[in-house]
């Protein structure tokens, strides 16, 4: 009773589906078929079962859900006939996989079939087991499979061998049970059995060291002999592929030799001859031969040093690289990457060819070649290679520019011989591929520029020139805008000319044109516009003669659709207008950015895509990556020492940024006060923007400040802040507030926190959760830091099942003590504390860094928050 030849229903269904002209028609046919099949399943008629399942498999392949057929597979497998079993097992492999619970039910049937008297049934069971068995099934059925490796029929032996590889992958503990059986397979003459046996041995060697040792001792010579026999064998039509007898077996044998030879000089020595023979004798004009050569080269490079062989291998790769077939060139590039580790010189010889490959039309080749070039770069050839790559960047496909520019930036940053060269190359990349350059790269460029004081003039002029031509490259515009803002005076006066530079005449108005262009261009993003606004503020002081025009541009931004821009425009306008006396000190050139700190931050923030499930915006205090508004703050460097009285506004977050870390811990207080409006007013007051506020309001504000003060450090910056204006003197609001502003000479202290040896930090803060770290060092052990983490619930509801997890890089060791509780009440009703101890094996060289993951249940829903702490105090 064959479902496919007699009953034509399956063919009919396929025809019907193929006849459908639209997807909707097809869905209708499938829906009807599925309904019929369901009905038949419910009738439980064994007669139609395998035909139904066959239809279901086809429907499944079209992408429709077919889970309702899973039980049918099990019933078919349990039925006695071979045709039913065959369809049942096929369905099992297609419709189920190892993760489904249903699969457990089949273990018993599999066991019976593995012991079946009909060897074809045994074959079916082995096949299913090999393709989908789970770890549990592997344990249960391993003895049967092990026995079947010795079965008389070769078809069963080879299936059992591959089934065993799956079993030992799933359950490595079982490896030793299979070692003897696997070794016996190596003596086989039947190619199918031999190839599966070699595969099983290879697998065992990878998993189990004892097995590796065993095969090394007992089988090395045997394997070498087998390889020699098939290499030298006469023409065998059954296994011949393009003149090579069974290249697949060649490859498996070479692979097994690779694990045997790796790390063992004696074994490597034994295989030298045969490897040399394969490397020299194999025909390389067909794919099959090249596949064998490729595997041979890989083995030569992996086994213990036999330098003459390696020369041979490198030569083969050189030949591959000059091959006309793209596939061969591709594998050559891949292999050369590995060869670099032991023979850099030989690979360097192919540099020109590799560079050509970077320009190949095939993306696969380009990608490999680019990887290889990156490895080939060293101090000596960096200038030449970079030039080639940048030249190519100009003409490369748009979709390749992202990869290419990223690699060029990496090379330039890593091997740059001098700052001038670095800046030049980066400018070229920004001009060609500015829109693909990542944030951390142009941030780094600004840091470098900031540090190269003798090149400020040169850089700003070069950027000016570049931005005139390439104004569509976003990041180029940003860097240019920043530099013109900072060094605009050097631009117009041709200050700091260096030898190779052509003098240019730029008027103040030209410089402002560039900024105006950036701020008015419709496709500039908010970061660029924000940066341009800051640059304008700075230029208003640098170019007093055209400050009216600058003011006009700033004023226009009052109408910006972005709230942030509006606010800043108002604030800056007020600075330009009303505070001429402090303006110049407000917009002084930024102090040199600290390269070391930046690099640490960058390293920390690079892999961190800090994300929260609860709310997307995470504010990591001091983190480099911030929402779009942050550049303004960063650029003015408001977040710590320098000038406090700069314009900022809006919610408590900005206040926190504005006043630096010290106040951060009190921001929760703002949320808790009954008059949150006063908080905003206070800010406006401090910043002297908007209408003068009534005295009462300001008094409450200052009260508020002092309450916050009590809760944070006693010697908080706020003390200095509020001392010039004690509450009782603030009689008239406006003057009082301006006094306040004036009282802030640009020197408020950073060393406000001098309490313990290390200041506490806010390690993490989101809308619902805050984590603070306090530090202590156990005496006599500078490497270890005890951290007490305090978790504060900022949401109005209690967190349950609270769990805190942390991860650290390898140079740190982390020990977590249990938390004080797993229920976190609303702020004010208590907090959870948890002690961590961190040991820094690179104490003094690297600072601490940590990732955190916090999970809890809020109103019965799971919430997961993640973050990274890279603002640990120095010296921990």
């Amino acid at each position, binding site marked *: 009773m064959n479902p496919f030849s007699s009953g034509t229903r399956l063919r009919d269904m396929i025809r019907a589906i193929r006849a459908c002209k639209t997807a909707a028609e097809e869905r209708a046919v499938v829906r009807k078929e599925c309904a019929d099949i369901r009905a038949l399943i419910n009738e439980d008629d064994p007669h139609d079962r395998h035909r139904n399942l066959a239809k279901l498999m086809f429907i499944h*392949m079209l992408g429709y859900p077919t889970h309702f057929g899973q039980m049918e597979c099990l019933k078919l497998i349990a039925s006695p006939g071979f045709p039913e079993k*065959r369809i049942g097992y096929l369905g099992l*492999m297609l419709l189920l996989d190892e993760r489904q619970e249903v699969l457990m039910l089949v273990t018993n049937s599999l066991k019976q079939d593995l012991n079946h008297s009909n060897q074809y049934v045994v074959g079916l069971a082995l096949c299913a087991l090999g*393709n989908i068995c789970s770890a549990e099934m592997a344990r249960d059925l391993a003895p049967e499979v092990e026995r079947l490796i010795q079965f008389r029929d070769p078809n069963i032996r*080879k299936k059992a061998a591959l089934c065993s590889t799956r079993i030992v*992958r799933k359950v490595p503990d079982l490896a030793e049970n299979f070692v003897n059986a696997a070794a016996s397979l190596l003596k086989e003459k039947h190619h199918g059995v031999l190839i599966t046996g070699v595969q099983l041995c290879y697998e065992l060697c990878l998993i189990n060291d004892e097995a590796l040792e065993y095969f090394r001792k007992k089988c090395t010579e045997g394997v070498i002999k087998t390889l020699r026999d098939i290499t030298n064998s006469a023409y065998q039509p059954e296994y011949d592929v393009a003149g090579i007898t069974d290249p697949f077996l060649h490859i498996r044998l070479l692979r097994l030799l690779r694990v045997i030879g790796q790390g063992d000089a004696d074994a490597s020595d034994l295989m030298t001859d045969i490897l040399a023979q394969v490397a020299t004798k194999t025909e390389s004009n067909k794919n099959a031969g090249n596949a064998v050569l490729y595997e041979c080269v890989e083995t030569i490079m992996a086994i213990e040093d036999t330098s003459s062989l390696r020369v041979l291998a490198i030569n083969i790769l050189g030949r591959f690289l000059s091959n006309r077939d793209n596939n061969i060139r591709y594998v050559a590039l891949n292999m050369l990457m590995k060869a670099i580790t032991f023979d850099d010189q030989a690979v360097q010889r192919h540099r020109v060819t590799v560079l050509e490959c970077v320009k190949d039309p*095939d993306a*696969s*080749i380009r990608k490999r070649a680019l990887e290889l070039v990156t490895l080939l770069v060293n101090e000596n050839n960096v200038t030449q290679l970079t030039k080639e790559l940048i030249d190519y960047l100009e003409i490369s496909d748009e979709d390749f520019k992202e990869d290419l520019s990223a690699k060029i930036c990496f090379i330039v940053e890593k091997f740059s011989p001098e700052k001038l060269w670095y800046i030049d190359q980066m400018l070229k990349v920004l001009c060609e591929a500015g829109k693909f350059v990542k944030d951390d790269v142009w941030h780094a460029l600004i840091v470098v520029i900031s540090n190269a004081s003798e090149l400020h003039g040169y850089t700003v002029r070069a950027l000016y020139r570049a931005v005139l031509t390439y104004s569509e490259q976003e990041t180029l515009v940003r860097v240019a805008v920043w530099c013109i803002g900072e060094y605009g005076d050097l631009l117009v006066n041709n200050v700091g000319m260096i030898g190779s530079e052509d003098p240019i005449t730029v008027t103040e108005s030209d410089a402002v044109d560039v900024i105006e262009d950036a701020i008015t261009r419709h496709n500039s993003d908010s970061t660029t516009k924000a940066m341009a606004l800051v640059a304008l503020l700075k230029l208003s002081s640098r170019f007093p003669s055209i400050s009216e025009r600058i003011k006009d541009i700033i004023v226009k931004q009052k109408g910006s659709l972005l709230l942030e821009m509006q606010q800043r425009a108002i604030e800056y306008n007020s600075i330009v207008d009303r505070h001429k006396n402090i303006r110049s000190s407000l917009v002084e050139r930024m102090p040199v950015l600290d390269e070391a700190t930046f690099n640490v931050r960058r390293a920390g923030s690079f892999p961190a895509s800090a994300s929260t499930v609860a709310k997307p915006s995470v504010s990591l205090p001091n983190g480099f990556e911030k929402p779009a508004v942050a550049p303004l703050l960063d650029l003015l460097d408001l977040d710590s020492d320098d000038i406090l009285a700069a314009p900022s506004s809006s919610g408590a977050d900005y206040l926190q940024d504005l006043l630096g870390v010290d106040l951060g811990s009190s921001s929760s207080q703002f949320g808790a006060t009954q008059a949150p409006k006063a908080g905003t007013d206070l800010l406006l007051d401090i910043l002297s923007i908007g209408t003068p506020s009534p005295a009462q309001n300001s008094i409450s504000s200052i009260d508020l400040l002092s309450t916050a003060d009590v809760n944070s450090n006693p010697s908080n910056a706020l003390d200095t802040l509020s001392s010039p204006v004690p509450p009782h003197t603030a009689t008239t609001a406006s003057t009082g507030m301006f006094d306040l502003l004036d009282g802030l000479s640009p020197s408020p202290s950073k060393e406000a926190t001098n309490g313990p040896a290390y200041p506490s930090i806010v390690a993490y803060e989101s809308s619902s959760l805050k984590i603070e770290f306090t530090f202590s060092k156990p005496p006599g052990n500078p490497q270890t830091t005890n951290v007490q983490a305090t978790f504060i619930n900022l949401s109005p509801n209690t967190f349950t099942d609270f769990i805190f997890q942390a991860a*650290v890089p390898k140079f740190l060791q982390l020990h977590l003590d249990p938390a004080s509780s797993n229920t976190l009440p609303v702020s004010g009703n208590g907090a959870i504390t948890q002690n961590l101890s961190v040991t820094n094996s690179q104490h003094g060289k690297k600072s601490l860094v940590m990732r955190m993951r916090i999970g809890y249940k809020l109103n019965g829903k799971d919430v997961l928050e993640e973050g990274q702490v890279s603002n640990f105090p120095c010296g921990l």
Partner: protein
Amino acid sequence: MSWLTWRVPFQRRLVSSDRSRFLLNSPFPEKMIRFILLQNRQGKTRLAKYYVPLEESEKHKVEYEVHRLVVNRDAKFTNFVEFRTHKVIYRRYAGLFFSVCVDITDNELAYLESIHLFVEILDHFFSNVCELDLVFNFHKVYLILDEFILAGELQETSKRAIIERMSELEKLE
């Protein structure tokens, strides 16, 4: 910077809910076939065999992505495309694409050769195979594949042996 695994107090461990990452972080560092696909130019799947467990939705995504990757490549280009953290070795026969997904460091040329062997077997079995044979006899194609590859590894390299085995099995129907 390489990060160590998450530390958790007590015995509590994270349970990963994201199964779709399986393909990316396969627990098998070994070189093995992750899946084999047979698709036509329109992207209709004619055969899909997975040797690693994937969610159904993920399978559809994989099939869609692989088709997109291979269908528009120039005939002169390599037969290899990088696919997520793996590599797809594909070969086109008339309107059909045979794609094998393997480890990034595996021997591409060897898989190219095995694809060809598989096609020869199909060609022999159906005597001059065409796409329609594979559509109407899809279950047989799966059976041939099961005789050729098992557990993501090559099982038999002789065309004759597989054809003989198939005719033995046919007799049992």
